[in-house]
């Protein structure tokens, strides 16, 4: 099934390993645009991955994710470590366009060769986004980034997906967002390894922290409880505390022996996603070219058969992958 690695992809793969910036940028484009070469590229680099510390930054729009990433990057750079940033912004639901604006907050680092930032659009997701993020993380890892920060779009279901791809998830909360404990309960609360109560210089920040503490006290089985860190862009020391909490979480992951179970669950999720995405792509291709499927549509339109029977008929005649290959 795997397509042959082209000369160009091989050059890019080698360039990434040698720490070449342009090669990394081109590699990420392959991940986004060329599924077959993506597979070849990832196969080539995979054995050299797993070194970097990966952190997801999630939270509602305007919570301060980009600003936190900017400050966190500064704290990491002060420890002499390099940073890769993946900033995700939404694609329009009405087309393919996207405005990727997270760079504006990152201007502190634009002269720093130790920071590489790439903006990704969600591109209608199709389940493919978290795969693209995982593979982009791999390339950053091989390129040599010590820390990889993934900044998600504003919170929602997809963020939970994306969070399955990083080691440590930071949930950014802010005061003044209302007593929306109900929305916290709905799932996003469960994915946080570290809570950052941002804009901590504003009134109500302590109240948010207490509410989170209260929620955690009610939540059983989460041990150890996630750290809660007060953060504000006005005080760089708070970013150091956040970085410390992230590092402490990572240490717990690795020490606790939980490492392998947690890693297996991540890999399980990824392989399932690849299988589903591959099948979806195959079926879509087949639907697009099938005359018998077109005939089935007509049958349903004329009320001769129902849509479920039509689907069943199509699937009954659907070739398995082995047959399709030959």
């Amino acid at each position, binding site marked *: 099934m795997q397509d042959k690695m082209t000369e160009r992809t091989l050059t890019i793969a080698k360039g990434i390993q040698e720490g070449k910036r342009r090669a990394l*940028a081109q590699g990420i484009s392959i991940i986004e645009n060329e599924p077959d070469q993506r597979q070849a590229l990832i196969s080539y680099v995979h054995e050299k991955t797993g070194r970097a510390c990966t952190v997801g930054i999630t939270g509602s729009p305007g919570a301060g994710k980009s600003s936190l990433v900017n400050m966190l990057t500064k704290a990491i750079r002060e420890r002499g470590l390099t940073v890769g940033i993946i900033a995700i912004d939404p694609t329009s639901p009405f087309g*393919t366009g996207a405005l*990727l604006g997270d760079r504006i907050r990152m201007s502190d680092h634009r002269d720093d060769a130790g920071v590489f930032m790439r*903006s990704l659009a969600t591109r209608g997701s199709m389940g493919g986004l978290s795969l693209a993020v995982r593979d982009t993380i791999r390339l950053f890892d091989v390129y040599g980034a010590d820390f990889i920060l993934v900044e998600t779009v504003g919170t929602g279901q997809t963020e939970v997906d994306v969070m399955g791809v990083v080691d440590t998830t930071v949930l950014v909360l802010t005061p003044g967002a209302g007593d929306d404990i109900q929305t916290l309960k709905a799932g996003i609360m469960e994915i946080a390894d570290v809570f950052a109560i941002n804009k901590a210089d504003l009134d109500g920040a302590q109240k948010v922290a207490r509410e989170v503490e209260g929620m955690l006290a009610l939540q059983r089985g989460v041990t150890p409880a996630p750290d809660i860190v007060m953060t504000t862009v006005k005080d760089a020391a708070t970013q150091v505390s956040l970085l410390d909490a992230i590092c402490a979480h990572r240490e717990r992951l690795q020490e606790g022996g939980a490492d392998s179970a947690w890693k297996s669950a991540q890999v399980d999720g990824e392989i399932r996603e690849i299988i589903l995405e591959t099948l979806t792509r195959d079926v879509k291709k087949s639907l697009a070219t099938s005359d018998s499927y077109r005939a089935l549509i007509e049958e349903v339109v004329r009320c001769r058969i129902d849509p479920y029977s039509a689907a069943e008929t199509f699937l009954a005649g659907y070739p398995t992958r082995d047959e399709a290959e030959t």
Partner: protein
Amino acid sequence: MADRPYRVLVAKPGLDGHDRGAKIVAKALRDDGFEVIYTGLRAQPEHIVATAVDEDVDVIGVSLLSGAHNRLCAKLLEQLEAEGMGHVPVFLGGIIPDDDIAPLKALGIKEVFGPGASTVDICRKIRDMLANPAVVD
């Protein structure tokens, strides 16, 4: 390559802090299906080039109202070439005197859009520019 969205960098070099025009063009390109990366204000040519490399963009749009377009564009094009990004077309918008347009194009700027240019026109010309490899390469 038409099966993926084009990536465009909207850049605001130099010292002028007026980016309404850049934002309008960014929004128009977004609505036309482009993935638009905006540098923010006061990006130096070297920042723009570094961003173009990292984001692997297909095209760069530069907005300039300060009068420093001749110098900044020359620097930008020169550094793009030096970083192996000379194939990326650059278009320009803002306040550009008519007399400067021909020299800027001779320098390598693909198109200049002045006040009153329609966003529909801008999007179409950029798309044409990208679809026509003879111009791109």
